[in-house]
Every structure is written in C-alpha cells, then in structure tokens.
C-alpha cells in the first residue's frame, strides 16, 4: 500500500528511515545494555550527523546568518525540521534574556510504531535529535545544551526539547603570529 505524506514524498522512504532508526537503537541496547550509555551514544551519533548536516542545510535552504538566537531557534523549528524530517515544530518558552527556549514537536517520524518496554525506562529514544541540534549549532559558532523536557514515549503529550545557548564562539585567527 502506498500512502503519500503531506509533503509529497512517498511514505515508504519514511518508513524505511523509521525502521532503520529503530534497528539502530535496538542494536545499541543489545551492545551497550545500559540505558544511560545508549542515550550518550545516540547523542554522540547525532552530534556527528549535525556537524555535517549543517552544511547541507545551509546550502539547500540559502538562509543567511541569523541575527540572534531567537531567529536561530525559529529557523531550526520551521526550516530545519521541515527539511529533514518533514514536520514543523514550534518554538515556545523563551526565557528573559533570550538564551533558552523550547522546541515542541507534535509529530515525530522517528517514533512511528514504537513503544518502550519496561526494561527501557530512562531511555531517550530520540536522543539523536538533541545531538544533531547541538552539533549543527556548534558549527555556526554557538555552544548549546539540548535536553528533553517532554517525551511522548514516556507518557507526555508532546516532544519538547530545551535548547539553551551557552555561548557564542567567534572565529579566532588560528595561526600563531610567531612564524
């Protein structure tokens, strides 16, 4: 049966992606056994993806440099998630100085067909996403901390990621002057 998702792509591709991700998580659980270790590995994998994904995103979306962190969060939620996962997220919960916000996903293609068993309590199934955001932002000079606030697989009503800007790291001249 062939359904087409709202952005026109055949959902057979999307299913393969979801099933592949599920297989990765299952294999990590078998290899590492500790749920905390799996969380860390997923985050590291996400980071390695993010540092490459940023160039693809910049090349395809043609956005210019964001003026501030608020714009950055909007671009991630509206353009980034749309481009790579086919879903739009929303940005809420800004703190007073504009360095911390929440990105909320109603729909998450990674978790189609997934239910967490009791042996996996404490697993952040979608932790690869937090790594991807952290890696991508680091390549545009922003050091961030990304954590999960709400996770539907754990019983909450949506997926909420908290993205906190730790600092901006501008380019330094990389060569020493003494040569």
């Amino acid at each position, binding site marked *: 049966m062939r359904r087409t998702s709202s952005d026109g792509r055949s959902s057979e591709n999307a299913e393969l992606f979801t099933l592949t991700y599920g297989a990765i998580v299952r294999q990590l659980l078998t290899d590492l056994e500790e749920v905390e270790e799996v969380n860390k590995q997923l985050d590291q994998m996400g980071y390695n993806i993010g540092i490459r994904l940023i*160039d693809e995103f*910049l090349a395809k979306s043609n956005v210019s*440099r964001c003026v501030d962190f608020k714009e950055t969060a909007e671009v991630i939620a509206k353009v980034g998630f749309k481009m790579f996962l086919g879903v739009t997220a929303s940005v809420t919960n800004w703190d007073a100085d504009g360095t911390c916000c929440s990105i909320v996903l109603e729909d998450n293609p990674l978790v189609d067909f997934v239910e967490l068993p009791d042996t996996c309590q404490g697993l952040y199934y979608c932790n690869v996403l937090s790594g991807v955001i952290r890696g991508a932002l680091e390549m545009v000079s922003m050091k961030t901390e990304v954590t999960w606030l709400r996770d539907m697989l754990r019983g909450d009503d949506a997926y909420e990621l908290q993205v906190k800007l730790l600092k901006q790291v501008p*380019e330094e*001249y990389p060569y020493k002057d003494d040569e």
Partner: protein
Amino acid sequence: MQFFGGSEISPSPPAPTATGNNAHMMYVFNRNGVCLLYREWNRPLHTLNPQQDHKLMFGLLFSLKSLTAKMDPTSAEKGNLGVPQLPGQGCSFHSFRTNTYKLSFMESPSGIKIILVTHPRTGDLRESLKYIYNLYVEYVVKNPLYAPGTPIRCELFNTTLDQYVRSIA
C-alpha cells in the same frame, strides 16, 4: 576526460590547454584555517611553499573580512578592529580584482570559505561559488569516508569540480 593534477602537497604546473580554461586556482578552507582543498589549473609562478601559501591566503581573507566589515559606512555597529566576528556577520566582501586576476570569495555561516582566482574579466561568480558549495555538500560532506576538518581526497569531487570550473571560466 582530462583533468589537471592538483593535489594539496606540491602541484606541478599543468600544461596550458587550448580550451579557454581561465581559472587559475581554488582554495577551500574551514573555520579553523585548515586548507581542505587546493586545486590549481593555471599558475605559472610559485613564490611560496604550499603551507605558507595557504596561510597567507587564509590570513589575507581573514583580515580583509574584518577590515571591510569595520569600514562599512552603512553599519550602525561600532565594533573594534581586531575583535573576531561570527562568520557571515556584518557585510560580506565577495571579490577583489587586480589588473592580472580576480579573486572571488564566499563564506558560509559554518565557516567554509571558498576562494576562486580567475582572469580579471570574469563576471560575478557568487552564484557559481554557491554551486560549488553545493557540490562540496553532495560529494564531500555526505561522503561517510570523509572525516570533517581534514583535507579532501575525493576523486569524484575533484573531477566534478574541474568540469564545472572549466564551464564557467
């Protein structure tokens, strides 16, 4: 198809061709100053060894970017000269021309800098540089055997790049 040798180590000048290959050379740097790629098609004079040449080029662009941003008459910001800027921030210079060559430059917000040196009558190459950035994404970034931050050794990228540059210059 013929393509000219141009490795990152010590390129030997290629034989001049009859087809109008007017591009001289190309550099790709990342945000840490590592020269990811150096391609040479037509460069008769070598004055420096490759490492010095790359450092010189990177330093030149770093300073030029900083200078052009600080001298911007339309900008309201009063930064100090020498304070490093985020890539893509401020006004972005994109080329300079001398009587013997034109240097075109593009920097992505992720710090990837693409520099193309061509003959002086070349037009605006900004779109071409964007296309080259797309080639970089497709052939290099998406290549799982490539480690980010290291010099590029993808033959397919080199070939496609040579073909494309030949068509624009």
